């Protein structure tokens, strides 16, 4: 990967704090005029040490810890973990619980894709599309809140099942929401494929061939926009996906425009899926009892997050705490595509290119937690404060 930036070039740093990035990450683009000639990445600014922290918490506590890896796709993280733990513990989860998990996952996909649409539009300076798509995203946020009690961390999963049921009143509300969102989404599809100013910013930008996508290990919509049919929901159905099959949406374009199209078309598939799940919600229990200790073993749990394949590796030593949890988030796979594809594009295309893969920095950065004593931390802040005061008194 030849993305080393030469020292003497004119380098435009983007991040750690930059208006284009809603989360901290650091990119260096070396430019000649407006054209990018090299790119490199440095992560870790929001590294929270979750994988290490997991080793000192019990499985249930970890459920909520891992849910907080990401504020957008919180549910898939918890789902991946619970599915893995249930595999290790050999639990038979009731079908209704699996269906509700799947439903929440699909609703989350709607909210994530609409969020991405808004962010990407904003990066392209199309604030009106940004405002409207986020307004409509509020519909699904409100639905999630009324079902689960929280807009972001739905905490639907417990080990062995789910916490809450979908009653008729909520079923109707969800169906109404889908009925509202479907024509709106169709409208957005028209806008992103029809508006000339928008197409001028997306078509032919960040093109990635199928071979490149496969070589660089792209996942999720980024890969599917390059024609790679890769979707865990289809390849290795989990939860209730065996009962509710998904049609994979792909596009051959490979550029930014194709990524827009794929994500929006996936929304239609999701609406269909949500309706189908609601129509055929299996009756029964919501959860089975799980033991606190999980039998020793190693397992791999893969789920399809809105951004692509989410990979969990779990190792239990037979205690009530995990021995190792490895999380590989989809964003991490897609980084390589940015640094490779960036070269040769205009600087103005970088924010859109970055957001084109729907990056999630907090998903990337998890690992190390630093156990600082409370006092010492206060001291260092105090030192910093004093330094600041002295600096200004000069």
């Amino acid at each position, binding site marked *: 990967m030849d993305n080393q930036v030469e020292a003497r070039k004119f380098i435009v740093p983007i991040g750690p704090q930059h208006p284009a990035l809603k989360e901290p990450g650091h990119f260096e683009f070396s430019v000649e005029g407006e054209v990018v000639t090299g790119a490199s990445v440095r992560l870790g600014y929001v590294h929270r040490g979750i994988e290490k922290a997991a080793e000192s918490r019990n499985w249930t506590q970890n459920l909520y810890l891992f849910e907080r890896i990401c504020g957008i796709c919180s549910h898939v993280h918890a789902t991946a973990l619970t599915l893995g733990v249930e595999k290790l513990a050999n639990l038979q989860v009731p079908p209704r619980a699996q269906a509700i998990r799947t439903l929440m996952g699909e609703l989350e996909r709607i909210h994530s894709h609409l969020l991405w649409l808004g962010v990407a539009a904003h990066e392209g300076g199309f604030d009106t599309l940004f405002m409207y798509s986020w307004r409509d995203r509020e519909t699904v946020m409100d639905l999630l809140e009324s079902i689960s009690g929280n807009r972001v961390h739905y905490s639907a999963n417990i080990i062995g099942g789910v916490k809450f049921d979908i009653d008729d009143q909520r079923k109707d509300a969800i169906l109404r929401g889908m009925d509202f969102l479907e024509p709106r989404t169709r409208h957005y599809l028209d806008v992103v494929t029809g508006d000339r100013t928008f197409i001028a910013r997306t078509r032919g930008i960040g093109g990635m061939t199928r071979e490149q996508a496969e070589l660089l290990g792209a996942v999720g919509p980024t890969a599917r926009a390059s024609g790679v049919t890769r979707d865990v929901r289809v390849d290795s159905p989990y939860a209730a996906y065996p009962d509710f099959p998904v049609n994979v949406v792909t596009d051959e374009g490979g550029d930014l425009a194709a990524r827009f199209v794929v994500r929006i078309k996936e929304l239609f598939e999701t609406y269909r899926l949500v309706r189908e799940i609601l129509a055929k919600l299996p009756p029964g229990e919501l959860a089975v009892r799980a033991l606190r200790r999980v039998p020793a073993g190693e397992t791999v749990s893969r789920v399809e997050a809105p951004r692509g394949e989410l990979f969990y590796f779990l190792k239990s030593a037979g205690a009530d705490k995990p021995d190792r949890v490895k999380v590989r988030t989809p964003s991490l796979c897609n980084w390589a595509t940015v640094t490779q594809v960036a070269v040769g594009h205009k600087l103005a295309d*970088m924010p859109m290119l970055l957001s084109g893969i729907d990056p999630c920095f907090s998903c990337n950065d998890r690992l190390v937690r630093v156990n600082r004593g409370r006092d010492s931390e206060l001291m260092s802040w105090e030192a910093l404060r004093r330094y600041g005061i002295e600096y200004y008194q000069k």
Partner: protein
Amino acid sequence: MFFPGGLFVIAAGLVYEWIDRKLVARLQNRVGPRWFQPLADLVKLLAKEEITPEGVNRSLFYLLPVVALAAALCTALYIPMAGFAPSYSFRGDLIVALYMLSVLTICMGVAGANTLDRFSLLGATRTLTQMFSYEAPFLLALLGPAIAAGSWQINEINAYAHAHPWDILVFQVFGLAVALVGTMGKLELPPFDAPEAETEIVAGAMTEYSGRGYALFRLGKNVELIIALTLVASFYLGGISNPLDFLLKTLGLLLIMAVLQSLFARLRIDQTVGLWWRLGALLALVNILVVFFIRMKGIHL
């Protein structure tokens, strides 16, 4: 000094900024800022500490915002603000006004180039590039009514437009379009906001400015907004004869501008330049040719 002098222009600029922001917000289905927000922003910025970055020419750094605002305010003197006769008027004041209007943009470009910051430098390059692209079509567009009126004096053109409103509006539609969109380019409003695209280069040329300097630049832009609106209204919309006339016409233009702002994705700087030279310049030239033709034949509606 007060009416229609500097303070009035500044106050009107703030009000117009608010109207613009409010309109865009409403078009995007948002609530938008309350009426005192621009004033509050201004007061806050003025009260803030001004940070001088290292490696700048200090006198230039402090002087440029002042010059920019002064130039914008001076231009206001030649404009029939709010329908009153301009404070100063002489033959050829249109040329002076147009040059003075460009001073603000040049000041911003120089201010960006003055600092070492990379975002500022890129922003400055883009600001100046954009200026060179819209300036010529914008000038040509304003020349149309001037040629029709046979005068270089803003006051006389205004009077001519008032006398023959339909002549100009009908025969010079292209000119009106170019002038209006040129105003948006001048003010770096979306979709021509590549020079200050916050998702790419933070605040462009203004990145290193804070506090007073930034406040003055912003004020300058507000003044420029109202001047440009007045110019376009008085040249193309049948002149401005009284305050009510002024309000209606400029607010109408502002509404159109707000709609245009919210309809498009940001153009890259190369797309902006391409658009202006390929389409803008062409339309403006066609407009001038039409004006010549009509003047030669002496057609009136």
